[in-house]
């Protein structure tokens, strides 16, 4: 699967000045999100202001890179032709331990079935020649949502 992903010809992220720190961190295998210094919420995707309190005093902070799968879909007929060679790939919604949800590609642990509620961990992966914050299910990390 990983080789198939690397060789895809697919659209990469359209980064802007504001979102560049996020993608730079991903290049070095780290996941960062914004944190609002006004109300304390973590924010993803990156914005010019906090969508909770509209403070523009935001800092980049390191995220744990862990989360829980809120939903997923196995894509058999991709809408984008570039993804056809990887058909059968899984897209999921990951609730990060810090709070916000992000959409990502989900790599199953071995040949285990993917389920809503699965614990996942970031697994930076080369997709079409770029590093993306892909996630992998980690059955040994059940009930992450109950962690403090």
């Amino acid at each position, binding site marked *: 699967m990983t080789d198939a992903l690397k060789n895809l010809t697919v659209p990469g992220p359209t980064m802007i000045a504001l979102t560049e720190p996020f993608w730079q961190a991903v290049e070095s295998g780290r996941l960062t999100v914004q944190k609002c210094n006004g109300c304390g919420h973590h924010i993803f995707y990156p914005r010019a202001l906090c969508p909770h309190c509209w403070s523009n005093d935001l800092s980049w902070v390191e995220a744990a890179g862990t989360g829980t799968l809120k939903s997923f879909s196995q894509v058999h007929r*991709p809408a984008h032709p570039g993804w056809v060679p990887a058909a059968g790939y899984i897209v999921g919604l990951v609730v990060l331990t810090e709070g916000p949800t992000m*959409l990502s590609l989900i790599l199953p642990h071995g040949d285990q079935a993917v389920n809503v509620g699965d614990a996942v961990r970031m697994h930076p992966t080369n997709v079409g020649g770029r590093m993306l914050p892909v996630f992998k299910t980690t059955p040994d990390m059940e009930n992450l949502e109950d962690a403090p």
Partner: protein
Amino acid sequence: MTAAIVGIGELKPVRRTTGRATLEMIAEVSRAAVFDAGLEPGQIDGLLVGPQVGETPQHVPATVCEYLGLHPSMSNVVDLGGASGAGMVWRAAVAIDAGMCETVLCVLANNREAVPPRSPNRNPIREFDVPFGASGANISYALLMQAHMSRFDIPPEDYASIAAWAQHNAQHNPDAIFYGKPATVDDVMASPMIASPLHLLEIVMPVAGGCAVIVTSEAHAKRLPQTPVMLLGAGEKLTHRAVSQAPSLTSGPLKPAMARAFHQSGSTADEMDLLSLYDCYTIMVATTIEDAGLCPPGAFGQWLRGRNLGFDGDTPLNTHGGQLGFGQPDLAGGMTHLVEAVRQLRSNTEGRQIRNAKRALVTGNGATMSEATALVLGAAQ
């Protein structure tokens, strides 16, 4: 018309911006106006924007509301060139007068790059969803459906039955794309899996087409030849653009939109003679039935069992076949639900007239269960 302007914002003009998205400029100037007014962001419940948000060619209000964390109950693009700003103000005033919202943010902003970016479409969904293989609406609705299915432990056949009913009703509409091609629950389940758990026949078929309606005053309506159909109530709500930003995956903005429409019309979901529900995917109808309060969350399957959704049944639902049976002529697809409701309330629907149809619920839905409008229509007294 009575309305007051209570806050203003303005950015210092610059010849060039570098690397700034229009969304950032909109955020900065909106912040200035809202804080000038002494308001909290959450008090904004109306949003009027211009069409020129460069990195967002479609779903502009939803994209702006998602970025700002707003959940407006009235929203619009005002595309009147240099008259857009002034045009926003009276539109805000009539929306407030109509009880659709209380406080409206009217905002226009633009960036000005020396070299226009190579890709014109640089909105958040393009940056943070598309690179992961999540292009198109199918995946978003598959994610909504999987979340609903898992949370309430619902068998896939329950969703498939919605498509089967749409195909059944399409057999009474010679204009429907699936006329003459009925499908059973088994047929739906046997159709190819597109993005799990969505089967091909649970997804609308794109077609060419069109819809139009004429709206006039009650006084003028009395002098025209057609039996008028009255607008009794309306509601609207926007919560997000991308499915990853949805406040809930199992209940949508139609819930508050329908609540407002029912409240304005002084009626309840149970009193509707026709449910004309937006059905881009089977999951959309399932969630709408639950959000309308027709049954508890997760119980649409039990609610459907034993009911007849045909024009001659106990619970007529999408009697034209819905978009699942009729086909989806792009944006006009949603309007087919409106046109069918008007036909039924005029009592002149050929071959599928609901007996004694007095009230209809019409729902519209956009993006990824993001943009919602509900109407309650009534037959002339």
